[in-house]
């Protein structure tokens, strides 16, 4: 896999986050990239941090959502996997040599400056606030993709969100046709279903030759 095509998605995977995960995967794929995640292959023999390290190594870009860095109700401690994986990604960029120096990423939080209270060393990075809204996630990923690949053109954020909304409306019927519940879709299922849907839904009107004569 060529790193230039891969985007490492580092985000929560619980049911509550599912709409934003769908929006992330959809926008990454609609921008012409390959969405990568620690969930993409369920291989019990691969140590999780090794898998994450491998995928980060294979990804030129990343989307990191640290919005779920909050105290657990039972333990009163924060879950810190997402900031840790963001740190691995930044570490690869800074210390990984020439092959990784051009790594770029989008960092999301719920609010723009919230990170300053739990990870102030991130100051200087452009943190995007999504406020839990799918259209904000799509806009930020699409606009970042444009800066990552300035020589390509992409569907507009509005167009992309409209298409995403159509996909989400179709998802319950799509899932039922393959005997699944939309919430049962694994990361691979979701990324393939999005890919096959996108394949049939070109965002541009088809090119028409002017009528002869």
């Amino acid at each position, binding site marked *: 896999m*060529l790193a230039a095509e891969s985007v490492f998605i580092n985000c929560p995977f619980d049911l509550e986050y599912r709409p934003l995960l769908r929006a992330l995967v959809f926008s990454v794929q609609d921008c012409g990239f*390959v969405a990568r995640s620690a969930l993409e292959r369920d291989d019990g023999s691969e140590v999780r941090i090794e898998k994450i390290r491998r995928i980060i190594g294979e990804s030129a870009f990343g989307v990191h959502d640290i919005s779920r860095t909050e105290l657990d109700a039972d333990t009163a401690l924060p879950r810190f996997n997402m900031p840790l994986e963001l740190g691995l990604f930044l570490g690869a960029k800074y210390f990984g040599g020439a092959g990784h120096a051009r790594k770029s990423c989008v960092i999301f939080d719920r609010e723009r400056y919230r990170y300053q209270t739990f990870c102030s060393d991130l100051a200087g990075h452009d943190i995007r606030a999504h406020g839990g809204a799918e259209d904000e996630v799509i806009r930020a990923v699409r606009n970042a993709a444009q800066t990552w690949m300035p020589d390509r053109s*992409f569907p507009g954020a509005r167009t992309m969100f409209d298409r995403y909304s159509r996909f989400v409306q179709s998802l319950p*019927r799509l899932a039922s046709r393959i005997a699944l519940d939309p919430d049962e*879709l694994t990361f691979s299922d979701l990324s*393939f279903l999005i890919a096959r849907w996108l394949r049939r839904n*070109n965002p541009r009107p088809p090119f028409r030759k002017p009528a002869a004569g």
Partner: protein
Amino acid sequence: MRIRSKPFRTLKTPVGKPDHFTVEQADAAVLAVMAERGETPVLDSVEEPAYLDLRRGRSQSRRKPVEDARR
């Protein structure tokens, strides 16, 4: 002066395989649901995974053209 537009992005195939269905089943489901919704498919262009391109490029470069072998 002719102004050239930037090339439009092309879709990529995801890594691996879906867990619970085949690609053919997904295609059939997409077409059926689009038909139910009165939507018309408009095909987008899809690139083969980059690693396949690399492999093919390597195997082609190793193979000597027939004309060269005769010289």
